[in-house]
């Protein structure tokens, strides 16, 4: 693998970076590659209020912002907030969002962009921001375009899209990944316990997480076809 110059991660929610790409990010940081996270929203409409409950609908954005800042500190990456509102990204004008992202990419000049695979990323915000991020790169001068790694997280991604181009076994970095996930205090337990299977009720959260999140896979976006 060629050494990247700068990696920009573009996801809509505080915690997408930790659940989706913390292992990959850790690997890049170990190589000394700068990583910047462009986070689309503050997860204002998230429904995990902590267990026990510590947040409410009005305090969620501030709490999740603090959690995100902590996670980014642990991952040792720069953070830039895009300022959209949770659950509304698909209703924004795609070109407007794309131009916003493009202006940031032109400043940051990444060699690699990581985002969600449109239509294969489960949450409408994931699909919408992935689409806008890819459009942003497409609108860039061809010679300046970074490579795009798109992450599909649907249950049927392999059947629908074939085998991913890049599959990282992130087990060597799994402690860092778990720490980043757990920095999202209000989100971590609610989401991880959602992965629990009825037949294996005594699994630890780490075991569940390793099973579901131990590999990070990406498709290299083809701008030619």
């Amino acid at each position, binding site marked *: 693998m060629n050494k990247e110059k700068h990696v920009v991660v573009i996801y809509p929610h505080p915690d997408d970076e930790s659940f989706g790409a913390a292992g990959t990010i850790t690997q890049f940081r170990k190589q000394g590659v700068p990583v910047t996270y462009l986070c689309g929203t503050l997860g204002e*409409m998230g*429904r*995990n*209020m*902590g*267990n*026990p*409950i*510590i947040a*409410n*609908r*009005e*305090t969620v954005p501030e709490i999740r912002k603090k959690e995100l800042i902590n996670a980014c500190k642990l991952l040792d990456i720069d953070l830039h907030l895009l300022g959209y509102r949770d*659950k509304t990204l698909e209703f924004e004008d795609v070109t407007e969002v794309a131009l916003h992202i493009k202006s940031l990419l032109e400043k940051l000049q990444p060699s690699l962009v990581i985002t969600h695979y449109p239509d294969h990323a*489960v*949450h*409408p*915000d994931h699909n919408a921001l992935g689409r806008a991020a890819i459009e942003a790169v497409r609108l860039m001068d061809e010679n300046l375009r970074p490579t795009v790694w798109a992450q599909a997280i*649907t*249950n049927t991604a392999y059947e629908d899209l074939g085998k991913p181009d890049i599959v990282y076994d992130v087990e060597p970095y799994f402690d860092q990944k778990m720490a980043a996930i757990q920095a999202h205090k209000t989100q971590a*337990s*609610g989401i991880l*316990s*959602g*992965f629990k299977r009825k037949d294996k009720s005594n699994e630890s959260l780490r075991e569940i997480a390793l099973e579901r999140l131990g590999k990070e896979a990406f498709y290299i976006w083809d701008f030619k076809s």
Partner: protein
Amino acid sequence: MMKRIELEEVQQTLNTFLHKDIYIHLETTNGAYASHFNESINVGVFIRNANVFCTQGKIVKDKAHYRVGLKTKNGWIYAEGLTHWEIYEDKQLLMAGHDTEGRLLVALQLSETPFK
């Protein structure tokens, strides 16, 4: 901090929002991943900063949950499954229902000024 609903206290607070223009946030959700983890479909709705004028407001207990009905000039606002409440920043009445994992299922919030 959200705490378990106390019917009397919530009723008294509700009364202070009657007969004036107020803003409401009303929401219900089963989460964006409902259909990802099992066979159900994603269901959700929210309206934020709808401007309403309520003439009556009442909270009713049903086992462990509460319902709130607000009679407006031209219709009704209704929420079911509420478990927790809080007076936020001395002025906003927040009510919500959570599951055992602390996930929000339903929210009804009243304020004299728009929510942020």
